[in-house]
């Protein structure tokens, strides 16, 4: 475990140095990363120029959901977002190089092409979240206050689990790496909007099947004092850490199964 973290740090550091060789491109991509999510939010603001509320939520409340989703996802994307390149490595056989090194494969794959530019998304999400917190009316209690950092950390862990599970899937489905985008980028986009906007079946799916709702919807509706579209007890808002731990365990198992099923292309 410790060796894995150390190796992750070293490989990530190497990629940061290599990125800095093209400074203009780094500056542009970091800004681009910031701007990419910024445009998402501009879209929401444009919507609110025309309407007062979306699914019964005000702009500040949507910004609150947006900020939580963007920060959690941004941190996961920064940490291990390059794992979607695994399919390419399986296809061209370069994964073999990683297998012979005395370092956990997961650490190597996770740090592969580590991209510091992804901080842009985290910064943008934090700014929106900060703005939202000054605008939304929340009856702060100690438990709500405590729930905030716990939510961000759990959300990040849930998205990390999705990335790892997606990478494990690529051992089987090599070319189909794009499927993962539906759950990662698609997931964060979905969570930026109020749960009341979507069909009940969809909300059920992301609550009970792929538990993305625990990234922000459940804790945020509790903090905002809003009803969740599904009839769930209030204490469910405090379960994201448990759900995150469960997701990570399952993703870990999937990763092991995927790695064991790996057959080299031999080229």
């Amino acid at each position, binding site marked *: 475990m410790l060796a894995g973290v150390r190796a992750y740090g070293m490989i990530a550091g190497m990629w940061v140095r290599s990125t800095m060789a093209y400074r*203009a491109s780094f500056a542009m991509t970091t800004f681009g990363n910031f701007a990419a999510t910024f445009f998402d939010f501009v879209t929401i603001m444009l919507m609110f120029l025309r309407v007062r509320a979306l699914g019964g939520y005000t702009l500040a409340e949507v910004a609150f959901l947006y900020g939580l989703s963007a920060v959690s996802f941004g941190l996961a994307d920064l940490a291990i977002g390059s794992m979607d390149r695994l399919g390419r490595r399986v296809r061209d056989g370069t994964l073999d190089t990683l297998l012979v090194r005395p370092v956990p494969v997961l650490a190597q794959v996770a740090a592969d092409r580590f991209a510091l530019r992804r901080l842009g998304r985290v910064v943008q999400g934090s700014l929106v979240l900060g703005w939202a917190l000054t605008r939304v009316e929340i009856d702060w209690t100690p438990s709500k206050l405590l729930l905030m950092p716990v939510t961000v950390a759990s959300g990040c862990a849930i998205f990390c689990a999705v990335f790892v599970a997606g990478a494990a899937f690529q051992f089987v489905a090599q070319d189909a790496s794009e499927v993962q985008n539906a759950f990662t980028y698609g997931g964060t*986009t979905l969570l930026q909007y109020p749960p009341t906007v979507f069909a009940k079946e969809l909300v059920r799916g992301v609550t009970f099947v792929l538990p993305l709702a625990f990234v922000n919807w459940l804790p945020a509706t509790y903090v905002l004092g809003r009803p969740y579209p599904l009839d769930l007890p209030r204490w469910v808002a405090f379960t994201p850490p448990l759900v995150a731990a469960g997701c990570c365990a399952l993703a870990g198992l999937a990763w092991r199964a995927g790695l064991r099923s790996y057959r080299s292309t031999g080229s």
Partner: protein
Amino acid sequence: MGGGRLYVAVAAGGFRRYATYRAATAAGVFTNTVFGLILVYTYRALWDAKPHLGGYDEAQVVTYVWLGQAFLSTLAIGGGGVEEELMDRIRTGDVAIDLHRPADLQLWWLAADLGRAFFQLLGRGLVPFAFGALCFPAYLPTDAGTWLAFLVTVPLAMVVGFGMRYLVALSAFWLLDGTGVGQMMWLAGYFCSGMLLPLNVFPGALGEVVRALPWSSLLQAPADVLLGHADPLRTYLFQGAWAAVLLGLGRLVQSAATRRVVVQGG
């Protein structure tokens, strides 16, 4: 005429090449469908709160969303066209080989990109569009004339899309690593093409500006023709003008690039 045959062969090659990756195509269909689902619900909430926003009714918005998902990879609005490969070839110096071919660089890549685009339209675009039209109350024109008029806008959109991405690719002659420019490009593409929000919903002057930019030829213009919101002839003229300007610019930059840039070797 012999030249024409060459480019048709290149285009057919581009089509076949993308058709080879079936798993990737299936994955793309799935992803586009999921994104379409998310968008369709958010837009419907918006139109619920404000009916007839931008002149669309709810059924027309549904059509707009799924048309966008069908066009996303076809027009490589978020990247993923031939420009990435061309950029790589410029960075590694392989472009020197392309320049020695008895074919025009721009036409060669245009043909390859058109082949790719037609495959993406059939392979990746049709299924999400059909899914959306079946599962949601979508507006579909009943007269063949509107569909025909719409079909003409599609290749025009493809050429405009290529014209912009070719310029992006050529920037690699100066910058070597084109990742940054590429990213700026897809950002502008998403926002200004109407992929995030239909351009007729954009307020005031911002709306006027984005509707005049080349990106509006990609999704907004074809959508407006399909939804009976725009005069087809004026749309063709708009798209054609941008196509000509962008391809012309591409020529200029290309000749500047090949004249004064040292090809990467090693």
